[in-house]
């Protein structure tokens, strides 16, 4: 298992905001956490990389074989950004505006001691031209920035990608392209993909398994095809019926 979670509970100021009894993602597998705003889905994702500030976390979280909650800062850094990459909703906001993408890529590789890795292959995998390395973040579109973020993960040798609403800020035609890239990487490189999304239809086209969250709790989980075809929980049914 690339990601293995047992009895994860995340609290802010004593209030339980995410309660996930069990979550496993294997290599080459895609698991999606679905929910609306306030469901705790993003909190869950961030806590897997130890990125929740001021939160009290209990349970057991293993990512790439490392116990995240007890790991040393050094071990955590090795996981974060290298073996397990985070892809966010608006990557452009996370890119330093005065740094060319190529410089950014080089620095990231150096930081994790992976200078030898193949940047060209990574760019090719996300259908980006090498020319993009010369550009500044504001000179690329939202879809290109998102694919660059994924290319960065590939170049660093990521085994796990955690994506938080990676396409919800994009136009549908661009979303289709990014989803296509993720699907292909998963198949070709055996990536483990944990996807957080509000879009059930999108999730149904890519995920093997689904967790439905509401108000911090997992209300239903199982194989995507089963959960979406025969939802057991009324909230899942409500979500499905709300689809236009």
């Amino acid at each position, binding site marked *: 298992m690339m990601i293995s979670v047992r009895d994860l509970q995340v609290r802010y100021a004593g*209030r339980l905001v995410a309660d996930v009894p069990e979550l496993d993602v294997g290599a080459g597998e895609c698991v999606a956490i679905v929910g609306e705003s306030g469901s705790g889905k993003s909190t869950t994702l961030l806590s897997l990389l130890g990125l929740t500030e001021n939160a009290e976390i209990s349970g057991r979280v293993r990512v790439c074989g490392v116990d995240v909650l007890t790991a040393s800062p050094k071990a955590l850094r090795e996981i974060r950004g290298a073996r397990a990459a985070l892809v966010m909703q608006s990557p452009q906001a996370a890119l330093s505006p005065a740094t060319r993408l190529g410089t950014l890529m080089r620095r990231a590789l150096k930081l994790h001691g992976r200078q030898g890795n193949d940047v060209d292959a990574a760019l090719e995998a996300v259908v980006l031209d090498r020319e993009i390395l010369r550009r500044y973040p504001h000179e690329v579109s939202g879809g290109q920035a998102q694919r660059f973020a994924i290319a960065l993960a590939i170049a660093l040798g990521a085994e796990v990608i955690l994506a938080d609403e990676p396409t919800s800020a994009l136009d549908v035609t661009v979303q289709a392209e990014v989803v296509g890239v993720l699907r292909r990487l998963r198949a070709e490189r055996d990536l483990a993909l944990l996807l957080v999304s509000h879009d059930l239809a999108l999730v149904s086209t890519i995920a093997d398994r689904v967790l439905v969250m509401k108000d911090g709790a997992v209300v239903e989980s199982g194989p995507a095809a089963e959960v979406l075809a025969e939802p057991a929980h009324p909230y899942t049914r409500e979500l499905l019926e709300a689809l236009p």
Partner: protein
Amino acid sequence: MTDVQPLRRSLPRIPDRFAAFGAVLLAVVVLAALLAPWLAPYPLDEPRPLERLLPPSGAHWFGTDQVGRDVLTRILYGGRTSLTIAVAVLGVSAAVGVTLGVVAGYAGGWVRDVIMRVTDVFLAFPALLLSLALAVVLQPSVNTVILAIAVTWWPWYTRLAASVAASIATRPYVDAARCLGVPAPLIIVRHVLPNSLTPVLVQLSLDAGGVILTSAALSYLGLGAQEPTAEWGLMVQQGQTLFTTNWWVVTFPGLAILVTAFAFNVLGEGLRNALDPRRAVK
């Protein structure tokens, strides 16, 4: 939509406590100035030539100055002058500056161009030069100081208010009001002005210290408050030659300026956070 709100909610609320500290400090300064007649250990303007330049002691906590006046007494009374100058300058500057600014920002086009060019003209004059010119025409006095500083101070608020108002003017709620046929002056008063005020208020409190320091500089040039008026800037200016020999004459009024400027600043920093409507009580 991502649900990372818990993150923000869990941030410590230090900025608000900071603002409260500034407000309390400022309240102490203002109260001390208001209650000067009761708090002051000696009557104002009672020179005692025999008690010149006494160091701080039980009788004179902050010592006495070169004509034998109690420094603490003059600082308490001086606070009235300095705070009056600060409030008057900021009040006048903000009233003029913000009014022109929100009109320029909302209207845009040639209205904005005209207002901003006039503003630039005022900004082109060095503050002290303009004040000098005013002092030639008017008597040097506290009122002259207020007028002179205000004349050079308001354009900054016009600039600030114009840029904020221009961004507010593009908000959907302003468009919605326009679509309802609400007349422009009402839109400005109801929607643009209230939503542009936060940065201006913050800037005002950050600037208060600067006004007090500027008025001190004008006093130094002999353009401001005149002897025997008690005013902090004047006290510093008159005492500065004594700094090496009789440090208390200049140090305590200087500290009064520092503490007041600091209090306003802390308040301003805190207001920046506290005034955000989205952070208001749940």
